[in-house]
């Protein structure tokens, strides 16, 4: 967690202050339309991109906002 992240409210802060919230997969599909396969895809399976991915972060030790940013998983750096 040595990286820094840019919170939309607090600005650039130490990675320690944040909690990772997973890849951005969009809103949960309606439960009535889910099958066990699509549910598993949404809840548990990840794309695990080697490169830039959009993901969720929570500014836990700060303003308490969930926000998305782009991070390069190969360098572990935020991509602005």
């Amino acid at each position, binding site marked *: 967690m040595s990286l*820094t992240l840019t919170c939309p409210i607090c600005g650039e802060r130490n990675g320690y202050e944040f*909690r990772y919230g997973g890849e951005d997969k969009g809103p949960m599909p309606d*439960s009535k339309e889910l099958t066990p396969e699509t549910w598993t895809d949404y*809840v548990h399976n990840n794309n695990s991109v080697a490169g830039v991915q959009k993901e969720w972060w*929570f500014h836990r030790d700060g303003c308490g906002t*969930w926000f998305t940013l782009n991070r390069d998983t190969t*360098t572990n750096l935020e991509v602005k």
Partner: protein
Amino acid sequence: MTRLENLPTLKINSEKALTLHYGGKTYNGVQGDTIATALYANDVRIFGRSLKYHRPRGLYSLDGECSNTLMEVDGIPNVLTENTPAKNGMQIKAQNVLGIDANYDLMGFMDKLSFMMPAGFYYKTMHRPAAVWPMAIKFIRRAAGLGKLSPDFQINGRYDEIYPDTDVCVIGGGPAGMSAAIAAAEFGLRVILVENKPWLGGFFEYRTVKDKNGNPVCMRAASLAEKIEKTSNIRIFKPAAVTGVYNNNHVVGFQRGGEKDFFDRRYFQIRAKSIVTATGCYERPLLFDNNDRPGVMQIGCAHRLARTYGILPGRNAVFSIGHDLGIETAIDLFDLGVTISCVADTRDDGQDPELEKELAKRDIHLLKGWAAVKAVGWKTLKKVVIKPITGSGEHRLECDLLVASAGLTPETGPLTLGHAKLKYDNHTGFFLADRIPEKMHVAGRLIGLNDPLSIEASGNLAGLRAAADCGENDKDGVRQAEKNLASHSGPGRGSKFISFPGTGKKTFVCFDEDATLKNIDQAMEMGFNVPELIKRFTSTGTGPGQGRIPGHNLALYVAHTDESPDKKPKPTKTRPPLVSPLLATYAGGAHDMSKRTPVHEMQKAAGAKMDRVGVKTTAYDSQMAAGGKMERIGVWNRARYFSNDKTSRDEIENVRNNVGMLDASTLGKFRIHGPDALKALQRVYVSDLSKIPEGKIKYSAMCNHDGCIIDDGIIIKKEENDYYFTTSTARAGATVEWIRYHTRYEGWDFHLVNLTDAFGVINLAGPNARKVLEKVTDADVSNEMFPFTGYREYFIQNIPIRAMRLGFVGELSYEFHVPSSYMQSLWEMIEDAGKEYNIMNFGLEAQNTLRMEKGHLIIGSESEQRTTLHDLGLGFLWDRKKTDTIGYFALNQTEKQAGRFKLVGIKMENPGSEPPKDGSPVVTDKIMGYVCTARYSFSLNEPVGMALVDDSLAEKGTKISIFEDGCNGDLKHARIVNMPFYDHDGTRMRM
């Protein structure tokens, strides 16, 4: 030995003596000595024995590049004595020695057995027949490893930590680093300078040679250091090691405290806008037979022994070097009184003509294109054999000191950890930084510079560029600095790699792991041709020196020997920590942070035994039951018992028959309000919350996507779009995050406020609770006006109360939520009013038994990560029409799923037996569940409990067996029964 005096570079004070104890003898050192220099001054030449072959090892370097001088100091093993300051009275022991000091080692014969230990012998030998290995491993375990730590050893000292933020962080306090720091600081930027020695100056500091302006470089170092010390916006960390450099300019390391510091070690994490690495070079060992003999040392080591510590490293020296620094040192040591037989230089040409003249003046032979091939001697050096690299002939020279060095190796560790890429450079013979991340700069010897003025100029330029990263872009200044750097000499030609053909059996590439050239050859014969893999297979460079001794040599030797077309030298990977810290450094100071409830002191005064709750492990209760001292667990201090009776019998019976009060302030308490507040609640709670009647509480639970229960609590609708809800103590911290996460896409309009610390909670429970309450309030609290599950807001005196009737402990019970500042007053009022009924405090343990008798669950005790709402029999809470509730899909899928653990009540087959410990597994021929909570029930006069068991055992009447830790395998037997155990119809809580 008397020390040299009157040298401007000395760092010792020979007036101030100190004593060290080693091997049953006392040695005298002086203030400023390191442990190793103090011993060296007393003619100690052997400091330890090598890992595998128990070869004697001496002082080779003063920078901690190998394990040669690792010793046990005051009970701490593996102290690098060559750069640890000596303190009066230190107790020192040699390591890896069977004997009292390193001079005599009964394991010395191991050296003769080296043929039995080829590369990778662990993997290849002693495996057949299979029975050999278990015996061999015992021997290997005893023989392997460095140093011994007594299991009783407790480390003393103070361990601090800091997390500074800065503009520029300069790693390395040599001439380049200091120039960079000064350049950046001149803009008023905040600069942190990290230096690993106790003083600034780098390789200028001990040298009297003059730069092209005619200034002795040691004086130049002193004036730069003085300027740095005077600059208030430069903060110096010294002596401090950088252990790692990470993303976004995160520099991590530790500082050693001096006499005046309040810490012994201080861990630091620096966040910088820009980094300058000016870590300089260490020396590249020369490879020849017995290159590890005591008496063989590096140029810098020999030079600094004399110049910094006033110790002549030997009387009669031979030099075998590959760099002008070697010639300079030979001249200087000659002038200080060392006899020098000759200087063998691996280079055929390219020596500094001025230095050659000085050598000639002193009548010292310079043999160009020659190098040492063998050191002769066992415990001390007797002779050196030198040979020309091409051609024939040899000299055998008697000596007691061989100053040997193949050249220089840049310290690239911080660079590569900071994600710079290295590339081999033929001109300098270095792995140079090829691609450097943004906002990181390099300067000094690290980029191959040798000339003192070039080094300073490169530092100045790096400092200006770092300042530009921080918004101080002085374009003219940078252009000027670039011109200035270009006007001085550029990177010098590096020394070539040499290795003589021969057996290489005792030519050590890595001292720490006793890896020889022969081992590398063996690995290559087996098909390894990548240095990184050879490193793993032969463990070359995996020791405490972190690969600094094999450094470039391994990669160069492999490229040199490999016959494949692609044979560019490839560096091995550097990993943190670059320097090994004490574990205590990482542990840091005491981090015991916890919260107290508003009535903490009052509870203590009433005799409470405090305990920590909030985040519990499943083992917690059983360990408590076993008499364990569990400290520093949860975030809260809570009263667990009010007597020494761990069953809390009096407290329990008082609640059942009279009236008790409990401080429940640790409950999570939240307000959610705004137009979309209800939508947010509906998303996370499994129940339908759209129709909570006024004046009523609603019990519900939250699940995760898997349908597993994560929290339970009550929700109150205070008014339209304004709700108050509680969570369990442990869940309070994650609640805001959870609710906001699961509404993150919608942009709903609601506000969520954590009131956990703002409100305190008193639970008044027992058949006489109403009588006590009636004494303090005028409000009508009769059962008709304020029934079970009711919610009321009223005043007690002037204190605003949120009152609710709950049945967690199974009796008539009130919960008062009041602003924390009123808690003590209300507590006293109720206590006073209750005196006539002999009201008593009850603690967490009493509450636990009381609620267990009622079959009420605590998340985390009666559930674990895989427990669903259905498993706990709480499926009735779930509203299956709300399809967008978190967990809906899984709740639907698992409702009828077989093979799950179900929550059941249990009674012991033998009512006289002790209740099983919490967490004890339920077993058949395999584990079929576990006991959640079991206690002796004073209401039923027998032990009862709750357990999560496989649904095949969950039928009422089924007999189960419980394995309990510490019962020698004797199983306890219990039977599944109905819950609750107490007051089945719930009439008592509705009174």
